[in-house]
């Protein structure tokens, strides 16, 4: 008799499983979990802390807060950041001061660990919430973060 009992129980479990998928099927309009990328580019907002790429914010006078201390370069585990700097005369104080020439960021090598941003004493670099980083040419992934002609914001010291 357990033979027929097994068949009955077996069919019952199968129907239970079908009821689960069946419910999802009937509600398919409401509970689709996929995103319609790239159609939803306008509405797709990343969270504020999302690590897209490292950027250096500039103010309207084309000034940044990077002092060229190279702490981010040292903190980076895989050499994604290179800073080219030299000592120039600071127009305000008239003293020689370390200034960045180029803050080079290799997005292609970056693992988005966030150690550089943790290490930065002046908050000169930040995360951008940009998620479309694919390019056709690898060299485009090497970026210079400071804008041409930019200089350090007055009063920022490390």
């Amino acid at each position, binding site marked *: 008799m357990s033979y027929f009992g097994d068949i009955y*129980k*077996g069919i019952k*479990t*199968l129907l*239970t*499983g079908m*009821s*689960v*998928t069946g419910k*999802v099927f009937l509600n398919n309009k409401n509970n689709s*979990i996929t995103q319609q990328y790239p159609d939803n580019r306008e509405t797709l907002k*990343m*969270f504020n*802390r*999302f*690590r897209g790429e490292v950027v250096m914010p500039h103010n309207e006078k084309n000034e940044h807060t990077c002092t060229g201390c190279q*702490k981010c370069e040292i*903190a980076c*585990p895989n050499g994604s950041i290179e800073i080219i700097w030299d000592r120039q005369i600071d127009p305000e104080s008239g003293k020689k001061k370390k200034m960045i020439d180029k803050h080079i960021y290799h997005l292609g090598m970056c*693992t*988005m*660990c*966030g*150690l550089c941003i*943790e*290490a930065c004493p002046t908050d000169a670099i930040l*995360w951008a919430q940009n998620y479309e980083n694919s390019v056709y040419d690898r060299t485009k992934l090497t970026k210079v973060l400071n804008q041409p002609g930019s200089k350090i914001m007055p009063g920022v010291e490390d």
Partner: protein
Amino acid sequence: MDTNIANSNLKSEDYFINMGPQHPATHGVLRLLLTIDGEIIKKVEPDLGYIHRSIEKMSERDSYQQIVHLTDRMDYLSSHINNEAVCLTVENALEIEVPERVKVIRTIIGELTRIASHCLWWGVMGMDVGALTTYFYGFRDREMINDIFEETCGARLTMNYNIPGGLMFDIHPNFVKRTKEFVAHFKTKIPEYDKLLTGNVIFQKRMKGVGILSKEDAISFGASGPVARGSGYSCDVRKYYPYSALDKVTFNEALKTDGDSLARYEVRIQEMWESLSIIEQLIDNIPEGDYKVATKAVIKLPKGEFYQKVETARGELGVFINSTGTKNPYRLKFRSPGFSNLSLLNHIAVGGKIGDLVASMATLDLVIPDIDR
């Protein structure tokens, strides 16, 4: 009938099959050299190294802050717990006491990571035995956790939220609310998992009595995590060597004694419930305070050897650091759970069918970068 063939003069040859490194059931780049006789497995020989990045060697040149982000890439499904392991080792070596807030947050995120990992495992488990829909249901729930992570840590998978001495930044204001939402949501979903897959007669037949691992063998093979607990070997690091805030919570260690694939499966389902209960105990009681203690910019560990065990979603992860007092470890070894668990695959798969191999491999829950490191 077998004996007849063996005694006759018929010549038979072993049939070799290369399963992987590109195979749907090996979840990555694991290569298995199978010796089969018809459908029956005679020998399984894993061939590793397709994704070996030599994290141990890289760690010897990195600073202790930098090592943490490498561990994200080992067992990427429990990246937070891996981070935590390294941070705990460094903190213990430096004798830093992290704030209570850090401990609680680490534990909550660690348990969320465990649930996320088990969700993915459950989906893939179903897919390996042929029920493709489970994959999406598992991902639906995992996605909620990933959103919580993304909001707080900034990344969904390789979070790198821990630093030696605490956390990189404080939790997001929405963290508690979202986590509670998830817990409420997920409590209705685990019964659905059971209805869809666990109770299913085909699934039961596929798993019961398949890939049997005795308790003695589990210990001898160095199994840990749900694999060992499915064989009745009580080995939860969270119970025996509690770390972070795990000594403040009460939970049961999921334990089954059958040692077959179904037991390992049920242990993981049970673990999801236990993780939910741990989160519920902690989420309302996150103490106020700092989210990190100040450490020196260049961390130098004292001379000596340091070992730290943690329980990842796959089992016992060990971090062994041999320091000579410099800013880099002299030698760093990760005892990864997947590596030991893989070594018993041959033992449990021999004598079964190809389908059994796939099913028992799924219950081992292998993550290949964890094995290859």
